[in-house]
C-alpha cells in the first residue's frame, strides 16, 4: 500500500466522521429550533382533554367498549386542520384572532363574539372546578377546601408568573396526562382488539351511539382553544420563518391529545364495559368503579388525571377569555403586562375564576345543567368561530402566500360543516332529550 492511498483512506474516514458530525449538528440545530417554538400547540390540544372531555371519553369507553375508537383518527385530522389555520394566522400576521376579527369585521360582530365567549367560557370554567371537586372527593378532600385552594393556585400561577414560567408548568401538566397511559396498562386491555377497532370504522345507527359520537367531537374541538392557540403563538413571537416548527407543534399536540383519549377509552372499555358497569355518568364515578376492577393504583391514577386536567383547563380558560375580550375591545392584555398596565384584563380573569369556583361551592348548585349548558354553548359558538377563521385565513391581503390551499379549504370546510351539523344535533338532544353527554 503506498502512501497516497493511505492518506486518501484517512481523508475518507475523516470526511465520513465530519459528515456524521455535520448531520448530528444539523439534527441538534433542528431540535433546538423546534423546542424554541413548541408549546402553544401542545398545550392547547392537551387542555382540550378537560373535565367535560374526560367525562365523555369515560362514558364512551364504558358504554360502547372499543367501538368508538375509530372516530379518533378523523377527529385528529379535524383538530389539526382547524388548529393549524389559527397557528398559521398567528405566525404570519402576528395578531390575535379577536384582533383580526375586530379589524376585518368591525365592532359589533366582535362584541357579540366576545360576550358569547364570556358566558360560554364561564360555564366551562364552572365545569373545570366541578372536575376538581369530584376528583378531590375520591382522595377524601371536601370540595369546600379543594375548590378555593385550586382557584387560589390557578390565580397566583398565572398572575405571578412570566409567560415562560407558566408555559413550563403547563408543559409539565401535559406530561401528567400520561397517568392515563399507566391506568390503561393496569387495566390489562386486549390491545389487539383495541388496535383493530381504531383502524376499522364501526358506524352504528343507534341514537345513543350517535349522541356519544357527537359528544366526543363536541368536547374535543372547543371554540375557545382557537383564540388561545393563536394568542400564544403571537405572545411567543413566533415568526413566519418558524412556521414549519409551529405546524409541527400543532401536529404533535393534536396527535398526543388523541393518544390520551385513546388510553382513556381503552382503560374504561377494558374494565367498566367488560364487567358490565356501563352506565357511568362522570369521570369521578369511573375512577371509583375502577378501584375494585383494576386495583387501587389505576383508580387513583385515573382520578389524578382528572384533577390535573381540570386544574390545567381552569388555569387556561379564564386566561384565554380575558385575552379575547381585551384584544377585541382594545384594552391592554397579556400576562407579560403588570396588573397596573392591564387592569381590565386582570379583573376579567379574576371574575371568571371567582365566579366559576363560587358556583361550584353553592350547596345545591345545578352543576349538571351548567355542564350541559357549557357543551351546548360550545356547540353553537364553534361554527361561528370556525367560519370567521376560514374567512380570515383565505384573505390574501392578510396572509399573502400563506392563504389556504384548495385541499386545505376543502378539508376545513367539510370539518366546519360537519361540526355545525353535529353541534346542532348535539345541542338539540341535550336540550330536548336531556341526555347527559358529559
Amino acid at each position, binding site marked *: 500500500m503506498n502512501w497516497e492511498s493511505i492518506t486518501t483512506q484517512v481523508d475518507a474516514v475523516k470526511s465520513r466522521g465530519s459528515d456524521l458530525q455535520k448531520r448530528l449538528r444539523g439534527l441538534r440545530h433542528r431540535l433546538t429550533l423546534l423546542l424554541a417554538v413548541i408549546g402553544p400547540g401542545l398545550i392547547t390540544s392537551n387542555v382540550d382533554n378537560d373535565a367535560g372531555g374526560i367525562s365523555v371519553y369515560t362514558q364512551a369507553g364504558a358504554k360502547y367498549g372499543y367501538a368508538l375508537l375509530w372516530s379518533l383518527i378523523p377527529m385528529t385530522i379535524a383538530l389539526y386542520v382547524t388548529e393549524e389555520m389559527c397557528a398559521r394566522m398567528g405566525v*404570519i*400576521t*402576528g*395578531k390575535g384572532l379577536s384582533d383580526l376579527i*375586530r*379589524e376585518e369585521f*368591525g*365592532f*359589533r360582530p366582535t*362584541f357579540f363574539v366576545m360576550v358569547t365567549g364570556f358566558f360560554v367560557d364561564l360555564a366551562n370554567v364552572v365545569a373545570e372546578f366541578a372536575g376538581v371537586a369530584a376528583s378531590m372527593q375520591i382522595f377524601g378532600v371536601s370540595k369546600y377546601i379543594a375548590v378555593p385552594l385550586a382557584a387560589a393556585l390557578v390565580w397566583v400561577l398565572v398572575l405571578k408568573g412570566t409567560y415562560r414560567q407558566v408555559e413550563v408548568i403547563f408543559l409539565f401538566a401535559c406530561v401528567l396526562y400520561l397517568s392515563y397511559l399507566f391506568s390503561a396498562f393496569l387495566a390489562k386491555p386486549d390491545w389487539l382488539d383495541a388496535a383493530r377497532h381504531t383502524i376499522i370504522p364501526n358506524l352504528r345507527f343507534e341514537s345513543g351511539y350517535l349522541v356519544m359520537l357527537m359528544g366526543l367531537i363536541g368536547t374535543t374541538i372547543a371554540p375557545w382553544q382557537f383564540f388561545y392557540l393563536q394568542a400564544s403563538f403571537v405572545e411567543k*413571537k*413566533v*415568526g*413566519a*420563518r418558524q412556521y414549519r416548527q409551529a405546524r409541527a407543534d400543532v401536529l404533535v399536540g393534536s396527535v398526543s391529545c388523541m393518544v390520551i383519549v385513546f388510553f382513556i377509552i381503552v382503560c374504561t372499555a377494558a374494565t367498566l364495559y367488560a364487567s358490565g358497569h356501563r352506565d357511568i355518568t362522570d369521570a369521578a364515578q369511573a375512577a371509583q368503579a375502577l378501584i375494585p376492577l383494576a386495583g387501587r393504583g389505576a383508580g387513583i391514577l385515573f382520578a389524578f388525571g382528572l384533577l390535573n386536567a381540570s386544574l390545567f383547563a381552569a388555569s387556561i380558560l379564564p386566561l384565554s377569555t380575558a385575552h379575547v375580550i381585551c384584544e377585541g*375591545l*382594545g384594552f391592554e392584555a397579556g400576562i407579560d403586562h403588570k396588573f397596573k398596565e392591564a387592569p381590565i384584563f386582570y379583573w376579567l380573569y379574576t371574575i371568571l375564576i371567582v365566579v366559576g369556583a363560587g358556583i361550584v361551592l353553592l350547596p345545591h348548585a345545578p352543576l349538571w345543567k351548567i355542564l350541559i349548558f357549557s357543551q351546548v354553548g360550545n356547540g353553537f359558538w364553534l361554527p361561528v368561530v370556525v367560519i370567521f377563521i376560514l374567512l380570515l385565513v383565505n384573505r390574501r391581503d392578510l396572509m399573502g402566500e400563506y392563504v389556504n390551499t384548495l385541499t386545505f379549504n376543502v378539508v376545513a370546510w367539510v370539518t366546519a360543516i360537519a361540526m355545525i351539523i353535529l353541534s346542532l344535533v348535539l345541542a338539540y338532544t341535550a336540550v330536548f332529550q336531556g341526555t347527559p353527554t358529559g
Partner: protein
Amino acid sequence: MQIYATELMGAETYDALGHFVGRVREFFIEPADQPNRVSHFLLSRGRFQPLLARYNQVGAVAPGTLRLNCSERELALYTPNEAWLAVRKDLLDQQIIDTQGRKVVRVNDVDLTEQKTNGNVELRLTQVDVGLPGAVRRLLQGVVGPGLIRKLQNPLPQRTIRWEFVNLIEPDPLRRVKLRITHEKLEDLHPADLAEMMEELSAAERQGIIASLDEETAAAVLAELDERLTSQIVEKLDPEKAADILEEMAPDAAADVLADLPKETSEELLEEMPGHEASEVRGLMAFDESTAGGMMNTEFVFVGETSARDEVLQWMRTQELNVDQLDTIVLLDTDAKFSGTVSVARLLLADPEQRMSELKTEPLLGVPGDADERDVFELFDKYNLRMLTVTNREGRPIGTITVDDVVSRLVKR
C-alpha cells in the same frame, strides 16, 4: 357642533331640492390637500353606482342626515382613490400610535367638528376616540336614536387622542407616500418606547415602520426590540438597508442580530457592510453567546499606562469618542498587553501630571473571551464592577463588558 363618524355612517343624504340621494357609506380625507378636512363622502344608492359628494357640496350636517347644497346631477360617480384616507376602512377598528401617550391604541370612533364657510359646511377631524363612549356608539348605532346614545355616553370616562398626535400605521410603502404618512414623530420618541409599541403591531406593520425610519433610529429600536422580532424584521428588509442599519448598531448588538439569522442571510449582510466593521462583527460572532466574548463590546478607549493624566485628556478631546463607552479607560503596558483600568471619575480628580498607572483601579481584573457568562456575573457582583475587560490568549484587551450588558443578560435569563 361636534359630530361623530359613527353618526354619519349610514346617514340619509338629501339634495338641495330635498330629494333623497343615498346613504353615506364612507368618507375620506385627502391628506395631500388638507390633513384633517373631510374631503369626500361616498353615497351608496343600492343597486346603482355609488356617488361622490365633495366637501363644498355639503350644506348641513346633523347626526343621521346630510344635506347637500346642490342637486343630485352635479355629483360625480365614485372611483376609488388610493391617496384618500378612508375613515371607516383605514381608521375605525384599526390600531394607531398615540405619539403623546406613547401607546398603541385601537380606534373606536372619530370626532369631527363642523366649520361653516360661505355656503357650505366643512367637517374637520379633531380627535380619535379610543374609550368607552366610542364603543357604546358603535354598539348602539342604528339600534336606538342618536339622542339617546349621546345621553348614555355622557357619563362615561373619555379617552381621546388629538388628531395631530395620531400616527397611522400603513404597511404598504406606496400607499404611505400617497397618504403622506411620515414617521418623523416616531423618531422623536425614545427607541425603547417605540420598540415596546412595535411588539403590539402586526408583522407587516412592524416591517413598515422600521423600513421608513432613518437608519440611526432603526438601529436603536432594533437593539431594544425582542431579539426574535429583530431577526424576523432584519431578515425581511432589503439587504442594503439592513446592512446600513447594522452598521449603525454597536458591533456587539449587530453580532447578536446576525447570529440569529440563517447562515446565508447573515453572510449576505456582512458582505454588504464595510470591511473593517464586518470583520469586527465576524470576530464577535465567533464567540458563543453565553461567554464573555459574546457579551462584550469592541468599542473601548485604551491608552498607554505611562502617559500622564493631562496628555490623556488632551488626546481624548481630539478623538470622536462614543460617550457611552467613556466610563472607564483601559490601560496597556509597553507590550500592548492589558495592565489595568482607570475610571473617568478618578481621572477627573487626579493631578495633571499623574501617571495613568498610579490611578489604576485595584485589583487588576480581566476575563478571557471564552469565560462563561456566569463567571462574569459573579465578578460584577463581587467587586461591584461597572466595567470588565475581556482579553485574548496573549493578554491583549479585545473588548469590554459594561454593567448594562450584564443587566440585560440577567433580565433575559
